[in-house]
């Protein structure tokens, strides 16, 4: 060993400097440091750790300043926790009532992050955003579907024609996605349900004395005209012109006050009509024949509502 080394060995200031350098070097716990399991730590303290456990603890002590501090603190506590002084202190502690009633927080059925969503500052933008998405996407979609169905109606397309056109993308106005074939069905279903509701739950029924069928004697179309007392037509049902006795043709009804034109393919042998007008007592239904000169009333087929 050199003289210089011997000199520094004797100088406490060198040891002090060395300690500071070591302490600085040890400040950062290595990223690969893993805190040993409690059982391993306890076995180490109780002197019954196996070789692997002993090695684990020694490696952790060498790596982490924090773990060294923990080991010293824990050893100190373990050495005194069963002492007479600790027992006396333990027995002198007054326990508040609330400690015995401690219950774990109720288990929430939702994850912790969900709680954050419940805060107004977070929730409000989400709700507004969802509404915006609905308005921007779903709203126009619904309108578009409705418009498409109406287009189909005005074009007097049945479902197969409509679907066929949709699939070919040759709709006169729009290239309609296939999905709208389904939308057509859904919309028509809703329409029928709506009408069925109207037919069964509102207004008055044209049952007493009404013909379940009407036949044209002239080969002209039979038309059930629905007029109010002023004679204004508010609806009509037209039979085919081929003299078919079944009322199975398309019916065009104008329902006041909505003034909505509905296209109803009522493919039935007979029709029970309920008119959802506000004051049906002022209206009547006549069966007329459509001739070249207009509607001709057919006596005996006038029904007061």
């Amino acid at each position, binding site marked *: 060993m*050199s003289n*210089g080394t011997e*000199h*520094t060995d004797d*100088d406490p*200031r*060198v*040891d002090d*400097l*060395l*300690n*500071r*350098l*070591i*302490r*600085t*070097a*040890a*400040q*950062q716990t290595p990223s690969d440091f893993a*805190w040993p399991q*409690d059982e391993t730590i*306890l*076995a*180490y*303290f*109780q*002197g019954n750790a196996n070789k692997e456990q002993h090695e684990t603890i*020694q490696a952790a*002590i*060498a790596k982490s*300043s*924090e773990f*060294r*501090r*923990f*080991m*010293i*603190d824990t*050893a*100190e*506590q*373990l050495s*005194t*926790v*069963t002492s007479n002084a*600790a*027992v006396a*202190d*333990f*027995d*002198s*502690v007054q*326990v*508040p009532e609330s*400690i*015995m009633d*401690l219950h*774990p*927080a109720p288990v929430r059925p939702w994850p912790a992050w969900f709680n954050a969503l419940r805060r107004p500052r977070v929730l409000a933008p989400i709700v507004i955003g969802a509404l915006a998405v609905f308005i921007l996407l779903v709203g126009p979609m619904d309108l578009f579907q409705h418009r498409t169905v109406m287009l189909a109606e005005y074009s007097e397309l049945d479902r197969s024609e409509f679907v066929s056109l949709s699939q070919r993308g040759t709709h006169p106005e729009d290239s309609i996605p296939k999905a709208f074939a389904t939308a057509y069905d859904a919309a028509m279903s809703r329409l029928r349900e709506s009408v069925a509701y109207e037919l069964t739950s509102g207004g008055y029924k044209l049952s007493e004395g009404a013909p379940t069928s009407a036949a044209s004697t002239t080969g002209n179309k039979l038309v059930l005209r629905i007029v109010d007392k002023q004679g204004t037509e508010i609806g009509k049902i037209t039979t085919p012109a081929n003299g078919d006795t079944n009322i199975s043709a398309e019916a065009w009804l104008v329902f006041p006050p909505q003034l909505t034109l509905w296209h109803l393919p009522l493919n039935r042998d007979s029709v029970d009509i309920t008119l959802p007008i506000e004051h049906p007592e002022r209206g009547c239904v006549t069966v007329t024949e459509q001739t070249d000169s207009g509607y001709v009333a057919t006596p005996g087929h006038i029904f007061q509502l």
Partner: protein
Amino acid sequence: MPSPYSEDHPLRQTWPSFLNVLEKDLTRGKAEFAVFAYKLLQARPPKILQAQTTEEREDWIQEIILHFTNDDCRVLREYRNTGHPFAAWFVTVVNHKAYDFYRKFSTYHERTASMDDTPDGIGHPDLAEPADVRSEFSEIVGKVAACIKKMSRKCQILLQAAAEEYNPREMLTLLGKDAGTNKQAGDDLRACRRRLKSLLMDEGVELSHYLG
């Protein structure tokens, strides 16, 4: 109440009665454990949390009790009777939790600030003019860390424990049951220091140059 000298005192029992009660009456078992935990943590709180206010300690004790009793006492049921007092296992687990808890609320530098007033060593009165040393200092620290890694695990622990100002008894605690006596630990420490200085000299670091 058992005598403070009795082996039947709850602090000395290897299988306290509340562990049996848990199986028969969970609510009562939890309540009895809560009383035990509260009294022990008030009588012997973890050292790292001794600076807490009364209110902080009360809150923390409640957290600890819930940690053991939550989920049908999952943590409490992990205890195995090894012939040592239940309180020893409890203290070990609680200390671990205390360090986790403490880590959440303080950064590493805040914790070590009290151990080292000058974390980077610059400004130490024994150092030469910082302007001359500062650029070299981080390099020297790196060399010290590298040299320590080359040494035996015993030297690593002894040198770091000495640097952190642990006393010989605490050093023996860190070294484990076969560490020997205080005198032997002191001798071993001196030998490790000489070895480290020698390694540093091999790296071209002469510590005496940095003394004023």
